[in-house]
Each structure stands twice: as structure tokens, then as C-alpha cells.
């Protein structure tokens, strides 16, 4: 499709300003533009159609099934947007007196209480702008804690299992820690012997996602956190997969000291560019004195803002992405305590339904029941038909769905990771299952055709290698 600059026609305009009453103006020569401003000239209809066309080139949760594993692409209820659009929330300024922003502080307080209840934590900061930022904040709390106890120099290592999200080692590195990678056991969980060998007086923390990235809830979780605590380390819970257990199990009860949540995953706020994200960081009481400034507290005369005693400082201006918190609180209140539990249970049920029905057609990386997502491997298809996980993902796009996550987790070769979420009906799941089966049949019958997929999308196969090696990041003006 054409870009705005390519649609531009001289004389077209969306603005019709009255003739100026002034007879002219004088500016020093060096301040005058020497050529016309480079803005496209377009009528309002042309602009409207351009953006509508752009919106039709993409696939989102509003257009269809989006089983992108590890991302929890659940539907974002419209009521969340309505509430977040109320002028009392949009018309505030972060520097206005707190006595005039009590309603907004109440939102932060109530959302904090709800998330503490769901995670089993004692305090929550909403400053982090997204998940990885929440991780960073969480590890800074742990670092500050060890330093305050005089063990900051000694505890230099963070243990991360090989099934972890890449952000975990990246976060620990950003915080100045050395990574100790430990292998998973055959069931996809933490290898307890490897963990026992890895911990010691130099252990700062263990970072763990539970259920982990292969969709397995680690049955040894209490033993895992005990081993780390006995060595004097802290336990960090990556909340990426919280959707599977919210209302059912709490990281705080599993022995974790710090969590981050991805509100844009678990609590139904939009993902990515349309977000923004929000990655609140919660902790147990012994870490609360280190939380970022400012924390909302409730006093007799209303809500106040307070800087915790040994605060690590601000990790973002003011209160993070406040309107996202409004949306999350709306979602939590809409669902209620029973709804939260039902959402998690349905997410797990949906994943197991798809896994069971696809098992005769695809090789599952792990046989057991899964939580909210599951991983299949196309290593067999790769060696027999020279068809990769990438080819299958591309072919699924021709069936009107977003492809699953590919090549993650790294411990499963030719991985596809599928997370249907709770917001899809059985009809949608059945359609997706039929699409997966059709692609497997196409693969067996005509592998070459799969390597040509997708056929029905606005663009076909893009050169992903060149896009990474030689990216063109700006609009290339043909002529001006």
C-alpha cells in the first residue's frame, strides 16, 4: 500500500484556515525556512482511509485467534477503556496536590491491595513501565537488601534455569550480577541436584517462572525456594505465566520474596505499542523498605505519598503508566474473586483441550498435563520433510490466525508454543485445531507448498535475515 507521502497531492488539505488579517511579517533572514516544510498534503478522507487500510493489514486480538505462547493475548474488555477514559483519570496532573487527586491514589491503593492478595505479597509498586522493567526493579530490591545486610559484595550470582525468558539473564546482567545457568530435568522442571550444586554464599537470587515456559507447574517449588533461602539467597518470581494460577496459587505462599506482573498479559490491558505496558513489582515485607518512591499509604485524612525508608529511588517518573492500572483494576473488579479463579481455570482447560486434540497430529515436547500453554516440536517433520516450525507458523497464517510463538523455549528444538487463553470459545479453539490438522496434512502431502506459505496475507515471506542484518529504519524519500 502507498504511504502518506506517496499519496500527497499539491493543494489537498484537511485544514481550511481563514485568510490572515496581517499584512505581512518580518523575520531575520537566518530564521526563515529556505524550503517548504516536508509534510504530505492530504484531505481528511484520504488520511482516514489510509489509517483504516493500515489497520486492516494487521492481525490483533480484535480480528481473530492469537495463540502467541508466553504472551497471554487475551481479549481486552471495552469497559476497561471506558473507565480509563473518564475525565477524572485523564485530566489529572502528577504534580497537583494529593488532596485533589484522592480518587487516583485510591485506584493505586486498591489495585495494589488486589495484586498483593493475588500474589501473596505485602507491598506493590506500580512504577515499572513493563515486565522487564518490573524484573529490573525487583532485582534492585534484592540487591539493596543484600547490601543493607552487609552481604552485597559477597552475593554476586543469580541462578536462572535454561527454560527462562531471555529477560531474566538480561535483567540480572543489568544489575551487575553473574548468571549461573542450570539445566532442566526430563519433566521440564528445575533439576534439584543442579540447583543444590549451584547455590552457595555467593547466591544473590534465583529467578524462576512457575508455571515455566514449557507450561509445567514445578511440583518441587517449595523445596526449590527452601534450597535458595537456606543458602541466603532471595527468590524472584517472574509473573509472565501468572494467568495460569491467579486466584488458585500464590507466589508468596510458594516461598517467593519478589514478583513482577505483566498487567498487559494477566490483567487484560493492551499489549505493545497500543499499550503501554505496566509491570508492577511486589515484594514481601522485608523488602518493602527498599521499594521505589513514592508509595501510596492510607492515613486518617486520606491517601498520601511516602518515600520508603531505604528506597532505591524512582525507576520511572511519578507513578508508572497510571491509566493501565485503571484498566487492570476495572478488569479485576469486573471479574471479582470468583471470576479471577474461573479465568485461570479456563485458560488451563483451553490449553489442555487443544493439546489433547492435537496430540495425534503433532509431537508434544512434554506428555503430562500442561498449565495455560503447551509446546510442540517439529524436529521430526524437520528431518523427514525439511519443513520447519517457521514454515508451519507461516502456513497457519493462511487460516486466519496469528501464529504461535516460534523457537521458544530454547530447550525444545523446532518449538511452537501455543497459549489459547481463557477468552476464546470452544468454537474458536475447534477452528484453530482444524487449521493445525489441515497444515499437518498439507505438510505430509506437499511439503514444498508449505515452504511457500503464507499465500493469503498482505505480504508474503519477508526477508527476515536481511531485515535484521541490513535494516532500513527510516522512510526512504524517492524524490523531493
Amino acid at each position, binding site marked *: 500500500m502507498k504511504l502518506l507521502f506517496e499519496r500527497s497531492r499539491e493543494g489537498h488539505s484537511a485544514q481550511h484556515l481563514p485568510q490572515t488579517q496581517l499584512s505581512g511579517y518580518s523575520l531575520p533572514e537566518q530564521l526563515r525556512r529556505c524550503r517548504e516544510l516536508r509534510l504530505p498534503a492530504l484531505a481528511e478522507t484520504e488520511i482516514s482511509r489510509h489509517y483504516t487500510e493500515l489497520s486492516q493489514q494487521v492481525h490483533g486480538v480484535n480480528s481473530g485467534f492469537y495463540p502467541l505462547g508466553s504472551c497471554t493475548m487475551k481479549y481486552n474488555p471495552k469497559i476497561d477503556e471506558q473507565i480509563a477514559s473518564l475525565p477524572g483519570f485523564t485530566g489529572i496532573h502528577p504534580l497537583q496536590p494529593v488532596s485533589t487527586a484522592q480518587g487516583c491514589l485510591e485506584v493505586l491503593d486498591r489495585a495494589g491491595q488486589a495484586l498483593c492478595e493475588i500474589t501473596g505479597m505485602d507491598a506493590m509498586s506500580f512504577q515499572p513501565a513493563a515486565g522487564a522493567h518490573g524484573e529490573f526493579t525487583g532485582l534492585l530490591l534484592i540487591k539493596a537488601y543484600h547490601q543493607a545486610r552487609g552481604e552485597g559484595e559477597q552475593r554476586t550470582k543469580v541462578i536462572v534455569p535454561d527454560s527462562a525468558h*531471555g529477560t531474566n539473564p538480561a535483567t540480572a546482567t543489568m544489575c551487575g550480577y553473574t*548468571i549461573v*545457568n542450570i539445566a532442566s530435568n526430563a519433566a521440564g522442571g528445575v533439576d534439584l541436584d543442579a540447583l543444590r550444586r549451584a547455590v552457595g554464599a555467593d547466591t544473590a537470587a534465583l529467578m524462576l517462572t512457575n508455571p515455566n515456559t514449557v507450561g509445567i507447574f514445578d511440583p518441587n517449588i517449595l523445596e526449590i525456594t527452601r534450597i535458595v533461602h537456606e543458602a541466603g539467597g532471595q527468590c524472584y518470581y517472574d509473573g509472565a505465566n501468572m494467568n495460569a494460577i491467579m486466584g488458585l496459587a500464590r507466589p508468596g505462599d510458594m516461598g517467593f520474596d519478589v514478583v513482577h506482573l505483566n498487567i498487559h498479559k494477566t490483567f487484560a490491558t493492551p499489549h505493545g505499542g497500543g499499550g503501554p505496558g505496566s509491570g508492577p513489582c511486589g515484594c514481601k515485607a522485608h523488602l518493602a523498605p527498599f521499594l521505589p518512591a513514592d508509595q501510596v499509604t492510607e492515613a486518617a485524612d486520606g491517601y498520601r505519598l511516602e518515600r520508603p525508608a531505604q528506597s532505591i529511588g524512582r525507576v520511572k517518573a511519578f507513578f508508572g503508566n497510571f491509566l493501565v492500572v485503571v484498566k487492570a483494576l476495572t478488569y479485576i473488579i469486573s471479574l471479582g474473586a470468583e471470576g479471577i479463579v474461573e479465568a485461570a481455570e479456563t485458560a488451563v482447560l483451553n490449553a489442555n483441550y487443544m493439546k489433547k486434540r492435537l496430540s495425534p497430529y503433532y509431537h508434544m515436547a512434554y506428555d503430562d498435563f500442561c498449565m495455560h500453554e503447551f509446546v510442540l516440536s517439529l524436529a521430526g517433520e524437520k*528431518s523427514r520433510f525439511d519443513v520447519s516450525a517457521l514454515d508451519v507458523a507461516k502456513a497457519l497464517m493462511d487460516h486466519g490466525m496469528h501464529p504461535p510463538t*516460534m*523457537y*521458544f523455549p*530454547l530447550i525444545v*528444538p523446532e518449538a511452537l508454543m501455543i497459549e489459547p487463553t481463557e477468552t476464546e470459545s470452544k468454537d474458536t479453539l475447534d477452528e484453530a485445531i482444524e487449521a493445525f490438522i489441515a497444515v499437518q496434512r498439507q505438510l505430509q502431502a506437499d511439503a514444498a507448498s508449505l515452504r511457500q506459505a503464507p499465500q493469503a496475507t498482505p505480504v508474503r515471506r519477508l526477508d*527476515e*535475515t536481511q531485515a*535484521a*542484518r541490513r535494516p532500513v529504519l527510516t522512510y526512504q524519500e524517492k524524490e523531493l
Partner: protein
Amino acid sequence: MNVPRELKYVKTHEWLNYLQADKVRIGISDYAQEALGDIVFINLPAVGDPATAGEPLFDLESVKAVEDIISPVTGEVTAINEKLLDHPELINADPYEAWLVEIGEISGSEELLSAAEYEALLAEEE
């Protein structure tokens, strides 16, 4: 899968070419480059950086993933293949010509495999 006889290998799929008794040139095997897919970025260490056997030394990025390169030996980085910084595709084109780093003053190493032993490992992983 190309597994040159004269090289040594480790189970994390790096190859080693001993230039001297205590100096080695390191790259990734044909199997590793094939599994990674098109390599788009390489994050080489600096000359003088310490290397510890069994621990990540640097990373490279393919269209699929970012992968740690585990140092097969303990020593010090004495040279890097700077050409790869602008042309990571050379690793895919010839993983045995496109060496990554040289490590000297070697004081220890991971378990080294012969070409035949490495081939047996690859057969097992299939």
C-alpha cells in the same frame, strides 16, 4: 553434517583448533550454525577479556534466538575475528573458516571430543 577430522569439539557445539599447546582458535560447528539459522549479529568479547571453561564468553544472534557461546577453555582472549562484526553471515557460509576468537594462556578446558566422538553425540541428539 561437516565435521573436520583435525579439530576438537565440545558438547556445546564449539570447535577448537590448537595453534600451540596453550593457544586455541574457537568457532561453532556446522551443526550449530545449521540449528541457529541465519546469524544476524555477533557480540564478540574484547582482547584481554578472561575466559572460563564452561561459562558464557559472548553471544550471537540468529533470526531464531540469541545464543551464548560457552568458552571451552580457561585463559585470556588474545584475538577476535573482527571481520564477523560486519559480516556475521560468514559463519553460516563456512563455520570452520569463520573462527570467532583466539584464547591463549590456557590453564584448563572442558571435556574435549574427537571428530568421531562429536559425530556420535550429534547422532544421539538426532
